[in-house]
């Protein structure tokens, strides 16, 4: 039965508008690791930043305030079948290796947030070997590693709020089992780097700040 015109107008009242689907949960945490990694950063004429995460507008804007070049890798591939690791895991190793000719030993800051959690040991070693090749001696690396038993099924997006705070955007509440990555294992994975600072945060995250070794020989 057709509703009279007046009634149809009434059904379009604000109460009838369906609610928007829920967006990502956003948590803002302090990041002593980022603060430490940014301390004493090179001046803008020489600072090149390697971000292994996805492109985030705020991060690009933040980095542009002090760097001359930003490389975004988006290493955690959401589509494992398209990854460089044969579909077993995640990662875009070839994107890093493609930089060797032009950017070998040129990056002075690396942002590696959440990456290690989603890679196998073998994948992480290969990735970090490439990262070390691309970094200047003394370059800083800031890593965020979940130290909990579980982690988000879809990697978080990380958004820099300021030089001491990061927003974690969680796209899903689904959880996966997290790999066991104690500090010793992370230190071993960060080949070519020396861990200078580490911070255990209350929300189950371990932040590392490492420095590229002056002399690094690939094993």
């Amino acid at each position, binding site marked *: 039965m057709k509703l009279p015109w007046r009634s149809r107008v009434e059904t379009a009242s604000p109460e009838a508008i369906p609610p928007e689907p829920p*967006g990502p949960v*956003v948590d*803002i945490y*302090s990041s002593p690791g980022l603060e430490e990694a940014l301390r004493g950063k090179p001046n803008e004429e020489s600072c090149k930043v390697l971000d292994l995460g996805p*492109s985030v507008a705020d991060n*690009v*804007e933040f*980095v542009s305030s002090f760097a001359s*070049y930003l490389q975004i890798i988006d290493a955690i591939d959401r589509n494992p079948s398209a990854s460089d690791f044969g579909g077993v895991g995640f990662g875009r190793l070839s994107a890093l290796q493609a930089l060797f000719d032009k950017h070998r030993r040129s990056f002075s800051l690396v942002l590696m947030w959440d990456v290690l959690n989603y890679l196998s040991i073998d994948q992480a070693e290969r990735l970090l070997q490439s990262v070390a090749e691309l970094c200047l001696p003394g370059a800083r690396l800031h890593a965020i590693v979940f130290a909990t038993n579980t982690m988000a099924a879809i990697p978080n997006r990380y958004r820099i709020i300021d030089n001491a705070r990061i927003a974690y955007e969680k796209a899903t509440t689904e959880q996966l089992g997290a790999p066991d990555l104690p500090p010793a294992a992370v230190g071993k994975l960060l080949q070519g780097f020396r861990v200078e600072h580490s911070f255990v945060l*209350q929300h189950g995250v371990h932040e590392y700040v490492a420095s590229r070794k002056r002399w690094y020989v690939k094993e």
Partner: protein
Amino acid sequence: MFKKDDNESLSAEGRPAQAAAGRSPAPRKSGGGATIGPSIKIKGDVSGDEDLLIQGQIEGKVKLGKHNVTIGSDGHVKADVHGRTVVVEGQVEGDLHAKEQIILRHSARVEGSIAAPRVTLEDGAVFRGGIEMDAGGKEAKPAVGKRPEMGQGVGAKRDDNPPKGAAQDKESGKSLPA
């Protein structure tokens, strides 16, 4: 008999509405610029002396250094693109060079490098590659940023102005409302 006007509705600027909407099947002038429609595929170099809207597919090079280039939401470009300003709403595999500005809209998917005095990334845009931030030289320090409105993409729920408690709670990492 029909008059021509009966068959072809005109846009406000007096051109065919279809062309104005970018659905023209062939390159055509549309209000001071040309449009490559969604059914067009070009292999080779594209150059010219007017603004260009790309809704089709291009493999090669796009060289319009003095003009604006827009890769529309249906556009798929495997090419290096040179323009005065370059706006991306669709997909690009290649390097983007602009004399003034590059804008990646929220629907953009870009793999390549970017070089421009001013770069704007909207939230939701997917970009993999390098951003040269001194493309304009030292005197023209580039402005890299995001659009002020955050109404689309994942960032729509971001709390640009976190509640006062955010700073106080940062040590405990208390969750904030999205």
